[in-house]
Structures are given as C-alpha cells and as structure tokens.
C-alpha cells in the first residue's frame, strides 16, 4: 500500500451538548467510554485485517464530541492500538480536540507523554455572556489555564477555535475575543461563523423568536476584521476558516481539503478510501454492539461498524476535489495535481463555470492553481455550487 492515509477517531461523548452543536455526540453516556474505547481498538484491528497489512498513516485526529473526556488510560490504549494496527510515517501529527473545562495539568502532561502532539482547544469566545449563551461549560479562565498547562507539558502546536457572528454580537466584542486569543500565542486558529443547524436548541430559539437571527453582513465584517488582525499578528490564512503560523497548518485537515484518502473510525465517523465514502453506524451503543459481536472479516475500507459504503464515481470525485480544494485559500486547486489525478485539464473540464466565476471576481489563477479571490472567500457557496 503506497497511499498514506489520515486516521480520524471519533469520540462521541460530551458532558453537555452545546446549544449550536449538531455533531454526533451524546451527553450523559460517559459510562460507556471504556467499552467504547475497546470497540474502537477492535475496529482498528478489523481495518488492518481487511487491508491485509498495516495501512500507512501520517496524521491521527481524535475528534468529537469531547475526546478529552477519555481517561488517560483509554487514550493510551487507543494510541497503542493505532500504533499496532497502522504503520506510522514520521513526523506523525496527533491531534486531540479538547474542551478547556475538562483539562488539568496532569492530564495534559500524560496526554503529551502518550504521544499527542497537537492540541485543539474549543475556546469559542472570551466573553462570559457569549459562552453562557452557547452553553459552553467553561470560562475564559479555563482556556488560559489549559494553554499554560499545555505549554508546560511540552505542547508546541496549539490551536484555538472561536465562534463569531452570534446574534447581536458587536464588532468590538468580537475584536476583544480575538485579541484575547492572540494574547495566548497559539500556533493555529480556526474561526467559525455561527451556523444555525436544524434541530439544535439555538435554531429552535430563533424559530420561536426568542433569539434574533445572526446578521450575515455583520458576520462578514467580523470575518474581514479577523483576516486583517491575524495577518498583522503573523498568521497565514490557508483555508476559509483556518489560520496558522508558518509551518503549522493542520496536516490532518489538509488531507480532507486536498480530497486525499482518510480512514474514519468510531461511531458515525466518515471515511474516504479506495474509492468509497464510508459511514459508520451512528449510535455509540450500536457501534459498541457491532464490534462486540463482529466475527467475519470485512472488505477494505469497510469494518463491522460500516453502515454505508458509497462508491465515488469520477465525476463526483472531480467535483469534490474542487469543492474541498477551493477552500484552501492559498494553494487552491493545483492544475498539475488535478491533471495527474484525473488525466484531464481543470481549465478545460470546467471551462464555463471558471470563466463565469472569474468574470464575477470570485475565482483567480495564482501560481498554476485555481483559487478563491478575497471576495470569493465570503461567497464560497456561490463558487462551489457551480461545481456540483
């Protein structure tokens, strides 16, 4: 196997579900964690068996949910299993997503010791009332502490997530949160516009008129303000919502945006490998059961937890390569890589939409690649739409 994968492990547990979140996660089921960790290890073993060898990986990402709810022993077991069942290509990027309210000094020290080398902290905001509104179970003080402990533990790659575009949020409040985040000197920052997801408490509040709809124009201003501030602070924007100090772009996520293969394990996890998009069974209990009862080997990239494996045809793969790749604001979609991959020239295959979108000022050619213009970054959907 010469393809190198990224490995995503999903940890679907949270102490409390945040008001805006529609991810596959469950609050109050922490008692399942030990069994879940075991199931995850078994799934890795099955995947290896299906592959016939240890699939090579160069990044590993523990996402959630709240992966920092994993007891250190469980974390260690999982990483050991990953080491046993996959062939690690150094330098391996191992990210742990963490809720700042769940961390302590010993935990961070231990996590670093078992191999985690990148920490992604859900800071979201420095404003107490915004954190309350979002139903985050931490305050900004927790974030400061977590960063300090992480540095002491040895972490040299820290990322902070922030949310902007909250109902009635002012530019000034946003700028404050952003400044507080920069004060903490992270290597990486992700900024997400608040999105109303169907079925979340937040979207109910808005439907019932309890909360005003977030103002998209103001969110656009916040975005532009952030671009400016982060640029001055020495960050490079490399994706629509992501900034990093040079050399610190998230390699795991780059794999997604370049539409390269990754293996997704855990309840509800998605994967993309060997021409299939895989989706694992969603409920954590069902997931555990499936792996407990599994016997027969599966065909790669399926595992006993796979609920669906959808073949990706060439046209879909091409279009997804654009939808994902154009999110990369610097590198965009490389002409050469596109032609190597599909045997067709990008500018010929999509000549009409590219012409239209360039004329509209949303796309540009830059260094033998197609990418969004600064204006296009805020109007990405208008661009992506043309390629579906």
């Amino acid at each position: 196997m010469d393809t190198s994968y990224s490995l995503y492990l999903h940890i679907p547990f949270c102490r409390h579900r945040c008001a805006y979140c529609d991810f596959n996660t469950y609050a109050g089921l922490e008692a399942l964690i030990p069994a879940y960790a075991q199931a995850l290890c078994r799934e890795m073993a099955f995947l290896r068996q299906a592959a016939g060898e240890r699939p090579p990986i160069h990044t590993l990402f523990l996402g959630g949910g709240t992966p920092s709810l994993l007891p250190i022993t469980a974390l260690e077991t999982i990483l050991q299993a990953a080491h046993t069942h996959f062939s690690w290509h150094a330098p391996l990027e191992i990210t742990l997503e963490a809720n700042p309210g769940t961390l302590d000094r010993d935990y961070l020290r231990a996590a670093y010791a078992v191999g985690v080398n990148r920490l992604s902290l859900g800071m979201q905001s420095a404003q107490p009332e915004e954190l309350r509104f979002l139903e985050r179970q931490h305050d900004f003080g927790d974030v400061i502490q977590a960063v300090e402990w992480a540095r002491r533990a040895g972490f040299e790659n820290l990322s902070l997530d922030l949310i902007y575009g909250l109902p009635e949020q002012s530019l000034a409040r946003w700028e404050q949160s952003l400044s507080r985040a920069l004060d903490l000197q992270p290597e990486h920052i992700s900024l997400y516009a608040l999105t109303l997801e169907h079925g979340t408490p937040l979207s109910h509040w808005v439907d019932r008129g309890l909360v005003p709809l977030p103002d998209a124009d103001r969110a656009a201003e916040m975005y532009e303000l952030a671009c400016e501030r982060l640029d001055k602070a020495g960050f490079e924007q490399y994706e629509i919502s992501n900034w990093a100090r040079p050399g610190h772009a998230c390699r795991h996520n780059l794999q997604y945006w370049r539409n390269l293969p990754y293996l997704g394990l855990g309840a509800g996890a998605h994967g993309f490998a060997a021409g299939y998009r895989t989706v694992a069974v969603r409920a954590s209990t069902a997931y555990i059961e499936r792996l407990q009862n599994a016997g027969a080997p599966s065909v790669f990239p399926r595992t006993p937890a796979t609920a669906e494996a959808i073949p990706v045809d060439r046209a879909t793969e091409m279009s997804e390569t654009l939808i994902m790749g154009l999110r990369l604001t610097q590198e965009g979609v490389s002409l050469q890589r596109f032609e190597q991959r599909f045997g067709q020239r990008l500018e010929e295959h999509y000549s009409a939409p590219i012409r239209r979108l360039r004329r509209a000022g949303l796309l540009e050619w830059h260094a033998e690649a197609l990418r969004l213009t600064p204006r296009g970054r805020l109007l990405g959907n208008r661009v992506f739409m043309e390629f579906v």
Partner: protein
Amino acid sequence: MVYFPPLMNRERIRNFSIIAHIDHGKSTLADRLLQATGTISEREMTEQVLDSMDLEREKGVTIKASAVRMQYTHNDGQVYELNLIDTPGHVDFGYEVSRAMYACEGALLVVDASQGIEAQTLANLYMALEADLEIIPVINKIDLPAARPDEVAAEISDLLGTPPEEILRISAKSGENIAAVLQAVVERIPPPQGDPDAPLRALIFDSHYDAYKGVVAYVRVFDGAIAPNDMLQLMATQARLQPVEIGIFAPEMRPTDRLITGEVGYIATGLKSVGECRVGDTITLASRPAPQPLPGYRHPKPMVFAGVYPVDGEDYEDLRDALAKLQLNDASLVYEPETSQALNFGFRCGFLGLFHMEIIQERLEREYGLDIITTAPSVEYEVLLRNGEVVRIDSPAQLPDPAEIEEIREPWMKIQIFTPTEYYGVVMELVTGRRGVFIGQEYPTPNRVQLDFEMPLSELIVDFFDALKSRTRGYASLDYQFAEYRPDDLVRLDILVNKEPVDALATIVHRDDAYRKGQALVSKLKELIPRQLFAVPIQASVGSRVISRANIKALRKDVLAKCYGGDVTRKRKLLEKQKKGKKRMKAIGNVEIPQEAFLAVLRLRDE
C-alpha cells in the same frame, strides 16, 4: 356491459343538488348519502368521492360539477331514483352552478352550525330560488363544540320562512340524522316534470373529456328520451353527433339503453373538444329537433388574464401540450402564445377568475410537473384611440403609446359582500379604498348585512378576497358579477430592475394610486428578490418619471464555515439544493428573480 335499470316511474325520480359554502361539509354529506343508499360500500369509500381531483380535496372545494345516481328505498316501500348533482363551490363558477341547479327540482341548503350563512350560500340560494327549486335547509356539524344550531336555525328561518323546528340538524361527519335527509329529499322535492312525447331536450350541465369516448356530456333530460342509436344535435353550437354510449353515474360511468324524461345521466359524444359541447347547451334529436332550446345558455368569457411562462425555455412545448390537455376538460380556459422581453416565450391565458387561475397554475405544476412563472393577473381593457379605433388589451405590455390614447376603459363588477354587521365599517373602508362604490344594503337576517357595491375588476383580482377575509376574521363572504366597462384615468406603472424595464412586472393602475402602489411594489420586490453578487436598483416609473426606488444591497457572505472530511456528502447536498433553488429563478439581464416576485403585485398590503 350494458346495464338495464328497472324502467323508472317518473314520479319516483328526485333530482337535487347541495348548496353550501366552502368547508360547510357538502362533500362529506354527499359521501354519507352515497354510503347510506349503498351506492358505494365502506370499502370503496375514499373520502369525498365526488371531488375527484386531489386539488379539490386539498382546497376543500369542488371545482367541477359531477353527478351520481342512488337507489333509495323509502319507508313507503318504494324504490326511488335520487340524482345528486354536485355543484362547483366557487364564485368563479357561478354560471356552471346555475346550470347544475336548473337541472334539479330541489336543493339541500347546507349551513355550518358554527359559521352560519355566508355570501356564497346566499348567492347560490338566490340562484336556486330563481331556478324554482324546493329548498331543504340542513344545519351541519352540530357535533362541533362551537356549534350554535339554534341561532343558525333562526337565521335560516328569517331567510326562508321555514319554521326553525322543521330544519334538519345533522352531522355529516358522524352520520347523525342522514336518514332524515334522504326522507326529506323524497317527501319534499317534487318529481321532475316534462313531456315524454315531445322532441328531446336535454340540458348539458357539465362535461369531462375522456380519451376513448371523447367529450362526455352530463345531461338532464327535460323532454323526450335518448337511446344509444339516436343521432343528436347541439342546439347552440350546431354540432351533430352519434353517441358512443349513453349511461348513468353509479357512481362510475355505467352504460344504459336509454335516458328518459326527468333522468340524469351522460352522453359520451365522441366530440374532440369541450368547446363543441358547452355547458348550458341543449341536446336534441337531429331527426326531430325541438323548436326551442332550454333557456339560459351563455358563453362564459374569461375575465382574468395572465402570462404563463416556463422557467426553463426548453419546457415551452410541454407547457403548450399541458394547456391543450387542460382545455380538453375546461372550455373556459383560453390561451394564446405570447412573447415577453423578460420571460421569453410563453402563453397569455384567460381565466374565469382568480381562483380558476390558481387551479390551472397548480395543475400545470403538479399534474404536469412544470416549473412555471405566472405573471400578475390583468383584466381586459378597452382602449379608445385618438383615431376612433377601439382596441382590447389583456396585458399591460400591450398598452399603446399614451400619446395615441383617448380613453382607457376597464371592466366593473357588481359585488355582494355578506358579513356580520360588526364588520360593516371595515368592509366599507376596504371596498371604497379600492375605488369601490357603495350601492345599497340589505339585512336578510338581523345580525348580518349584505352590502352591494360596484368596483373595478382590476381591484378585485389583486388580493381583495384575502384582505376581506383577514379583516373580517374570515366571516365575510363575497360574490360578484360583471357590470360594464367604464373609462377612468389609468396609467401603466413600469418596474425597472437593474435599470432595465421588466415587462412582466408592469401593471395598469389608477393615476391617483400610482405613487402608493409603485412604492409598495418596489419595497415588496426588494424583499422578494434575493441579494445578488452586485447591488441592484429597483425602480417604479410612470412614463419616463421614476416615482419610487430602492436598492438591493450586494450579497456579502454565503459560505459554509466548516467543511471537513465527514461533511462532504451532506454539504454537497446542501449545495445541490441551493443550486436547484437558483435554477428555479429567472435570469433577467444579470439579475436572478424568483417566481414569487412576478406575483408581488398580489402581495401588497394595503396600509
């Protein structure tokens, strides 16, 4: 298979219809009667057999009349033939209602026990009285918590003089007292009259198109009889025909060997167009024609016109075919090709009224799967030119150069509004605010008033009914008839989107209203047209003078904040949906305009 019914003694035939306001339970009652007489079994019973179109079921109204024959054993031991002729329940189909009633000797007047009498009921009741029908009042929905049967009985009694205690009280839904209704039909409604030996005269009160049998005419035989081999003639259109078959509705079409004086049934004419076989026409024998047709034939004329365009130009042929098919069943639908600068190729369609237009529009979308844009409805104007010539136009775009116009005339309607007296003021205000003129009032019952007005049809078709309903909390009801053409100071209000006039958004308005309507239209369009990649000015103008403007700001942000590996499929679906929505819009110049915008003029609120 030919069915031979026992030759019915005319004395034991009863022909009747049901008069009811929308939602007062006509169809449910009809279903119950069919069940109670065993015409259909429980098993066959899909709700509301008579309303065969989905659309009707959804809107809760009957669009086209229908007829059904029931065998009923009365408590005198005799079997009676009951013909129930269903009537359309909407104001646009008044003529069809009048013909259906003329085919009957009696009518059940169904009134909702909580709503009481409404304008529609009243209008149809007057029609029934004009046709000399025996009226059997029935109070329905007595099982509802809001029922007030005593008050409603008093209202009916005031209106008809029937003693309140003689008025039937039923629940069609639960089946309560349905037997009493059937008994009353037999005992109170007279058997049909007519001369069996006279030359055939049969009234067409409805029709439908059948691919194999041609136009199927629904008829009531007034004189003489019809046999399957008779050569027949239509007295108004002069069409001659040899029936493919004749028969009755039981409730499905069942062939018979004859239809006699007083009976109701159908003639499958083999004719290829409903235009040759119009409602109200009289069928007679070609060999022995009647000297006089039955009275009351009219050729209903379309009153409301609108452009119907395919969203995607490639669907033009499909749209034409669909209109042709709809017209097979609906002689009152007219259409001809039309070209719009904004919308390209489509059709100018004429409808009996706004409701009729909505039905056609929905059928095109639902039954034929077409994506269409309907422009704001217009009436037919008469334009007197300086050179003395009179031209008729049914689209604002056709209005000649103002310099050539001497006078513009528009159709005026007589309207009747029936409302609880407490809404007298708001109704008055609504109508006079729309150039309506008060004519008179009557109090048919103590708490209700009938207000008579005259009003331009152009004002009536723009959201008037909805405004009336909302201001009277649904209590007022409306009926209208054409009065005459009258001149007024009318001008064309043009709309410019991104500085280009959009012909499909132009309207003809009274000069005094131009400014107010222009403003309202511009702000409504600003609401309905989504933000584009660039700023779009919207302007309203009369002649070359801009009277109102607004600006649609450029779209700034439309991007998914997060997209990681697992999301691709879902995000892709969102993008596909978004793209589809965009495709449904009409690109005019560089601006994408959603379908609703072309009907914006209908959605203006009167402030």
